[in-house]
């Protein structure tokens, strides 16, 4: 207690009462509120990159990643048979394009497009996400090839669309020029044509990515290891 304060006994009883009642009411109201994941709701129309830059007062890198966290929370239903079933994929792709324009060097939008939104058991939606990966790859092939390599595997094993998989694989060979792109990625078309199952292909690809130092983020490594386990479990069944 400082010399500027009187003892608590100086506070009238009715003020104590109001303070206690208001605190109890606040706790009750907050406890009764529904918490957890947001309800089934769709994405709003995508914001333009300039608008996102303006809203973040120029903090583009932080805004891009926060926007990704917002998007990934919409209609997320882990464990359901049909995840993202209420999500408007046209809007989703618009958001991902805006975020990519905001921070073109971020891997998050294409990681999500290839590893999350393209892996839904709905071929039409999966194709929308894969086409975004392909389009974005063409803008910066030497940086974005890992996502197109994964897209080629998805096209072959999930969509059973060999021509699409070969188109993606051939694009990696044709458009990448950097010495950092490994040989297995350049020869992705042969890899696609080989008679191996999805698990074997995924193992080879993840092993290659880890060996090339492309996966350094602990959250990404955890996510990919979990995906590999899920794939393993599904194939064993």
């Amino acid at each position, binding site marked *: 207690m400082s010399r500027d304060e009187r003892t608590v006994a100086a506070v009238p009883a009715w003020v104590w009462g109001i303070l206690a009642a208001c605190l109890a009411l606040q706790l009750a109201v907050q406890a009764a509120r529904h918490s957890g994941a947001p309800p089934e709701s769709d994405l709003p129309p995508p914001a333009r990159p*300039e608008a996102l830059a303006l809203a973040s007062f120029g903090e583009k890198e*932080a805004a891009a990643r926060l926007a990704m966290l917002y998007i990934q929370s919409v209609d997320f239903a882990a464990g359901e048979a049909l995840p993202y079933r209420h999500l408007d994929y046209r809007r989703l792709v618009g958001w991902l394009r805006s975020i990519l324009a905001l921070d073109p060097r971020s891997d998050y939008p294409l990681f999500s497009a290839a590893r999350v939104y393209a892996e839904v058991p709905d071929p039409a939606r999966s194709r929308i996400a894969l086409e975004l990966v392909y389009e974005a790859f063409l803008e910066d092939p030497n940086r974005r090839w890992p996502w197109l390599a994964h897209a080629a595997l998805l096209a072959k094993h999930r969509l059973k669309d060999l021509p699409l998989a070969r188109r993606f694989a051939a694009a990696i060979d044709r458009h990448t020029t950097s010495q950092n792109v490994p040989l297995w990625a350049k020869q992705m078309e042969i890899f696609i044509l080989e008679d191996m199952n999805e698990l074997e292909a995924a193992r080879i690809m993840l092993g290659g990515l880890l060996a090339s130092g492309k996966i350094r983020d602990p959250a990404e490594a955890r996510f990919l290891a979990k995906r590999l386990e899920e794939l393993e479990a599904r194939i064993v069944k």
Partner: protein
Amino acid sequence: MPAAILARFVLTEARRSGLPWLAAGCVAAALAAAAFLSQVALTESLALSAAIVAALLRAATVFLVATQVASSILREVDDKGLELMLSLPLSRSTQYLGRLAGFAACGMALALVFSAVLLLWASPGAVALWALSLACEAALVAAAALFFSLTLTGLVPAIAATVGLYLLARSMPAIQAMAAGPLTDASFAAQATRFAVDGIALLLPRLDGVARTEWLLYGLPSAGDYLVALAGVALYWLLLVAAGLFDFHRRNL
């Protein structure tokens, strides 16, 4: 040296008013936000932490410097301390520059402490460049807050004007990009709007070039770009100092 004594008074006042504790609170809050967000990220969790902490601590630097300067000057005005100081045999320029040096040093110290936190995620070279440019940004905010505090003589107007100038300067490249976007028509109104926006931009510092988060995430800037950005901030700092001195010399007791 009178100006150095005034600067020391400013720093002592900042220390006694609890600014170090506020700074510590800002660091704790930024780290907590980064820890939470990196847990929900699927990838780039380290980059996300660095970007969020950098953005939050930069905002904290600006807010703390602006409020510290405005509250200190306004208290001095209300207590008639400024009138007493002006009656002393010290030139007005010395008084103004002494206070400014103290506030700028306070802002730079905050910037350096906050930047040290980023060593958790970014390379020392990138953090050093980011810290130096944030220190310059903090000195600029201190100069703007001192100018507005002595000109507007009200706590809320002074803080609002300083923060408004800062946010407008940071947002101006995005506003210009929107005004000149491919979807804007070629009507007279659209052209006039674009000229007006470009005109306002001429009166603002280019803050989008300093303390860029991308240096922490993707690598160092080129020396030329870095020096040009710092020179722009230094030029605007001198402009604010000149405007402040001009106004302070005209002030009647």
